[in-house]
């Protein structure tokens, strides 16, 4: 089954490809001889999966018109629960845990993330709490649980088998990168070839129509947030290898960047539109920029300001491009002008009023 909205639009990713070429050229010029070095490209491939997995998790929740603010918290929860389970199983000697224990501990960590996703899904699907508030509450709750579980300390001492997910290599390729490619391929099949993937777009583009089309909206939302949390869990495993430790507040700046990635990748925050190719290009662009400015030893807070400025620049570009070249319907994406959205026909009144 084909997802709706994938109508012929020529090569929709051309602007993103152009941006990618431009930022790679820019970073290569700014860091002559260093940026395109094999070492730096390899480190790019190691760093990309964390951002990418979080961003795809964010994208999944945006497809139904939601958002998942707990995405980083769930990833930290996964790592912490896995580390604690491992410690409990091995009686304190985590580093020499057997493969069986590692798998059991990872399963427990995964369950923790899925539970957080199920909680969000329940609040959003059954109690109809707006997604932004539900996930905000769950985020605060999980952050608190993470602090309680770790008492604010950093936990480390993991067996090599577990660390390999984040920092190992297979046939010369970074293990996390291979994981990312496999997962994105599976996600592509899920989104394009399954009923669930179709339903995700339907619920996001027109909730009322979805309800009248015999789609079990509650069940779709429930599974969607659990899938989003599954991506958090994968990120959590990768993070364990990359940081060689777990803590309650790792990677919190990634929350914003994952929202930015969706925005840049062309995902409609009101749901119903967003393509994997756009997202893939978008995360690569952001990682290139991030690694490039890192090589330049730019103040990390300047980078924070830069992410914000990039969002504003994108908004402006979207606006002007939308005004000139595209139809009103394209301009309506991202807008909060109910009139334009109604006129565009992309949204019905029910969706605006009952947006989750």
């Amino acid at each position, binding site marked *: 089954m084909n997802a709706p909205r994938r109508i012929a639009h020529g090569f929709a990713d051309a602007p993103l490809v152009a941006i990618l070429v431009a930022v790679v050229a820019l970073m290569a010029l700014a860091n002559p001889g260093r940026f395109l070095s094999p070492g730096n490209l390899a480190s790019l491939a190691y760093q990309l999966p964390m951002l990418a997995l979080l961003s795809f998790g964010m994208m999944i929740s945006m497809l139904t018109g939601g958002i998942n603010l707990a995405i980083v918290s769930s990833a930290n929860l996964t790592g912490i629960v896995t580390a604690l389970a491992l410690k409990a199983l091995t009686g304190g000697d985590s580093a020499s845990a057997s493969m069986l224990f590692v798998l059991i501990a990872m399963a427990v960590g995964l369950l923790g993330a899925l539970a957080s996703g199920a909680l969000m899904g329940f609040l959003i699907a059954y109690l109809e709490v707006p997604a932004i508030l539900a996930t905000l*509450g769950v985020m605060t709750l999980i952050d608190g649980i993470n602090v309680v579980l770790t008492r604010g300390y950093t936990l480390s001492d993991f067996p090599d088998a577990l660390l390999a997910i984040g920092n190992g290599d297979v046939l010369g390729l970074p293990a996390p990168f291979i994981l990312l490619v496999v997962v994105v391929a599976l996600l592509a099949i899920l989104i394009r070839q399954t009923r669930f993937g179709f339903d995700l777009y339907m619920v996001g583009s027109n909730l009322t129509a979805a309800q009248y089309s015999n789609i079990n909206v509650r069940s779709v939302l429930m599974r969607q947030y659990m899938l989003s949390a599954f991506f958090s869990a994968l990120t959590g495993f990768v993070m364990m290898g990359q940081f060689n430790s777990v803590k309650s507040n790792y990677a919190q700046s990634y929350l914003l960047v994952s929202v930015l990635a969706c925005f840049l990748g062309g995902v409609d925050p009101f749901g119903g539109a967003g393509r994997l190719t756009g997202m893939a290009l978008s995360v690569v662009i952001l990682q290139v920029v991030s690694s490039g400015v890192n090589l330049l030893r730019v103040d990390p807070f300047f980078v924070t300001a830069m992410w914000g400025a990039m969002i504003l620049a994108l908004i402006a570009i979207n606006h002007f491009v939308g005004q000139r070249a595209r139809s009103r319907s394209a301009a309506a994406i991202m807008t909060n002008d109910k009139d334009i959205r109604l006129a565009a026909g992309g949204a019905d009144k029910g969706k605006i009023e009952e947006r989750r």
Partner: protein
Amino acid sequence: MKSLLNRNEFYLAILIAVLCAAIGSLNPHFFAPQNILAFLKTSSVNGILAVGVLFVLILGGTPDVSFTAIAQVAEYAVVLATLKWGGNVGIAFLMACAIGAALGAINGFLIHYFRVTTIIVTIATFNVYYGLLYVLTGGGVVFVVPTFFKKFGESLLFSSHDAAGGVYGVSLVTLLWFGALALGWFILRRTFLGRSILAMGGNEVAAERMGLRTVAIRLFVFSFVGLLSGVAAIAHTSIVLSAIPNSIVGKELEVIAAVVLGGASLFGGRGTILGAFLGVLLFAVLRNGLVLLNISSYWYDVTIGAAITIGVSFSAIQQLRARRAKVNVIVTEAA
């Protein structure tokens, strides 16, 4: 009576009363006037910010998240400026309000001109304001602020002596909060501007066709949020007597949650000053109770997170029931 049962404020007030009774019975010190006045003072920062958040939520769409960054910039700028050139509370106050209103107006302008949802624009401006603050100041901490902040923070109204000879009373900082509440109430309930904000939040298209100048209303709301962030910055500096670049940032989600618990709708057009007050009060009581009951600080976030989650679920269930009741009425009328 029935309308009372449908109001969030009513349940929130009961919840706060129950919570107070429970904490008070476990630790009688809770009801001591010194304690109540102290937590009212420390909650003023969130309380003042909550009034601004209420206005944004009433206007509709998604919440503003940049107001803490605005307050942070205002605090830092005012402290640095008054340290360098001197000044007094009045000057600091005006400066903070002007900086806040200007940054808020930028938000309003971007949101209106580019027609983008509030949360996306404000996530972006949050990072720009906050990131640039760090870059420009180097993230340094100012531990010595001008003495007038200390004087203002310690000034009391209706002061009285306790048994040990200590002085207590209503802090001027708390009065800033109550002043912001009164101003917010006046604008919302007694002015045409307030009616326009409510109307625009209820239905922007209808408001525009009625001839309301939506640009002006939106610009006002976001400048007002910025202005209140400036006021909150002065309150915060007077309490903590230092300027730390990450001391206000991070409160935004709790403030938004407090206002939503107070019954403000995320879909616009609905929300009260009383609700914004009670929502902040609930978190204040909760925090104070955790301290008085000697609960480990590790549990703070869990408790606050649980309160937000339960609170938003509760208001969601209420709205769900209200919507169902409405549908029933329509069905009955049709029949």
